[in-house]
């Protein structure tokens, strides 16, 4: 090996009396380092089966790295296949819902840069569901979760609520999660001519096809959101929708309706927004994420403008956030969780 390297490093300066000078040796060594680094990097990064013999020989001179240690999670955490584990920290029964506080921890060897952050409400790909949760009670009931709460001021934490009442410590038999495996968003716009308000449309052909972004790419798929009914008055609106297609997909719908009247020179406009997003007017925080579901209703209220004019059209913006859940259901241990009683 040394002979080969020595040959590789040969330089006309070698012929000088006294051999290469230290700085030259350093330069040659650095050059060798860069060359080998490039060769090894390419060999590892590509891992091409058709590597030629010289590449194979180069790689063969590098001892194989020791096998990585097994993934490790702190005690009590269960891997949900996302690079991190989760653990139930606390549960509390309120008058109309059960809150479950959950923490998360990275598994050893996991690069946090490759894991979707938990605890952020930043708009975009990170604002998506952690999973579909099911609470199994001792009396045999199964309760699907109501909301997942995240907040950028509580990084790594998640609070899941379930619409169940009257539970005490020991009533919860198990907690299950089907982890979210992908998410995406699609925006559709519709303009509906109307003969004035109110309108009550029961068969509206507005569909938004599933669009999911996952590690394997973005694709539109087999699920679509179908609007079943649309009711609009001058001050409020109501939209019923459901999903059609395969199981394991959820969606949340945000809608905005602009009431348009063209009886005057400049069209008058009034806007109906989702009731839940009225929080936009209080700018301390972004609206909390809503849980994707397979059906839902959107209640709209008037945000601005008074439609004193004759409304002739509805401009509707449908923003559909899709979530696809894994087929595998994982049971989350409840051992060690604190049951917090009210004061």
């Amino acid at each position, binding site marked *: *090996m*040394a*002979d080969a*390297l*020595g040959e590789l*490093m040969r330089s006309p300066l070698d012929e000088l009396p*006294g*051999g*290469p000078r*230290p700085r030259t*040796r350093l330069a040659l*060594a650095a050059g*060798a*380092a860069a060359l*080998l*680094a490039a060769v*090894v*990097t390419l060999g590892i990064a590509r891992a091409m089966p058709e590597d030629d013999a010289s590449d194979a020989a180069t790689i063969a*001179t590098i*001892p194989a*790295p020791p096998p*990585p*240690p097994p993934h*490790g999670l*702190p005690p009590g955490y269960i891997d949900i296949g996302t690079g991190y584990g989760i*653990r139930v*920290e*606390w549960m*509390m029964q*309120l*008058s109309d819902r059960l809150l479950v506080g959950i*923490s*998360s*921890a*990275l598994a*050893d*060897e996991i*690069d946090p*840069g490759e894991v979707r952050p*938990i*605890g952020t409400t930043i708009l975009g790909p*990170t604002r998506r569901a952690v999973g579909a949760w099911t609470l199994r009670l001792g009396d045999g009931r199964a309760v699907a979760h109501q909301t997942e*709460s995240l*907040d*950028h*001021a*509580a990084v*790594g*934490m998640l*609070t899941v609520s379930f619409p169940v009442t009257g539970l005490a410590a020991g009533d919860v038999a198990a907690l299950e999660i089907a982890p979210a495996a992908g998410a995406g968003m699609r925006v559709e716009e519709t303009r509906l001519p109307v003969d004035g308000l109110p309108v009550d449309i029961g068969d509206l052909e507005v569909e938004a096809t599933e669009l999911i972004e996952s590690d394997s790419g973005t694709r539109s798929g087999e699920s679509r959101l179908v609007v079943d009914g649309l009711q609009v008055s001058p*001050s409020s609106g109501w939209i019923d929708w459901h999903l059609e297609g395969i199981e394991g997909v959820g969606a949340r719908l945000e809608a905005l309706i602009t009431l348009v009247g063209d009886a005057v020179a400049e069209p008058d406009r009034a806007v109906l927004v989702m*009731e839940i997003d009225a*929080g936009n*007017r*209080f700018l301390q*925080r972004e609206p909390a994420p809503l849980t994707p579901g397979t059906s839902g209703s959107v209640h709209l209220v008037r*945000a601005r403008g008074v439609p004193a004019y004759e409304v002739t059209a509805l401009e509707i913006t449908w923003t559909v956030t899709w979530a696809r859940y894994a087929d595998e259901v994982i049971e989350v241990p409840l051992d060690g969780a*604190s049951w917090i009683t*009210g*004061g």
Partner: protein
Amino acid sequence: MESRIRWSSAAAVAIGTLVGIAAGLSAFWAIPPTEAPAAAATEATTTTAPVPEWFHPGEVVLGPAVLVPESLTIGSSEVAMRYRLEPITPSAAPSDEDVDTAVLPDRWTLVTSSGEVAASTEPWTRQVVFTLPADAQQVGVEGMRLDRYWIRSPVRVPVTLDLESTPVAEVAPGVSIEIVRIMSSSAGTQVVAGLLAEHSFTVSDLAVEGVGGDWLTSSVDQTGTGRWTVSFSTSEAPDPLRLVVRGVVWVPIDTSASIDIDEVPRG
């Protein structure tokens, strides 16, 4: 904790660079300063790619962070342990502030040869100090445990208050909301709602909002009373009154996490 490092996805580049550097150094020494060829064969140096370790045995997992004991000082009148908190959770933009505020250790117990000594730590401190009994001559420290800590949790809880009955409701662990005052006029209605908690810091990151098209604004009393003024456009308060409490609440977690004091460096 030194090995709790973070590495990028360009692992191949790192490995290649490390191997290259190692080989380069080998070449540096393999090429003699004189004309004599190298006498000894040199094999490529084995390199191990660094892997992050988020939790080490002996550390105490407190939700999204671990408590790492740093030093233990045993004196004649008190025992003190310094510690730090490290994140172990996926984070979009980890910062020291996130780490420091993820969890708050609170109540501790020191187990000595003459009994147990309790202590509490103030929020935001990173040291627990146990005051030993005055008559303790030679107390042997046998163990230490953490009995309670606080953990941040996000909440978003809608609440409906019947103004005719007692307008109080629980909204989160240790937190209730009550209607303090209602002021109505033809210009609108202002509802003053208070967040009640034993410790004021537990509700400092919670907000109270209204629900519905008649809700206008919310503002908080800056003097630390935990009171919010929620304004509606109607001349009378909506009844029932629908509000949303959302933000982050501190939740007390009772535990019995032992500290392996034998592994804690002496201060």
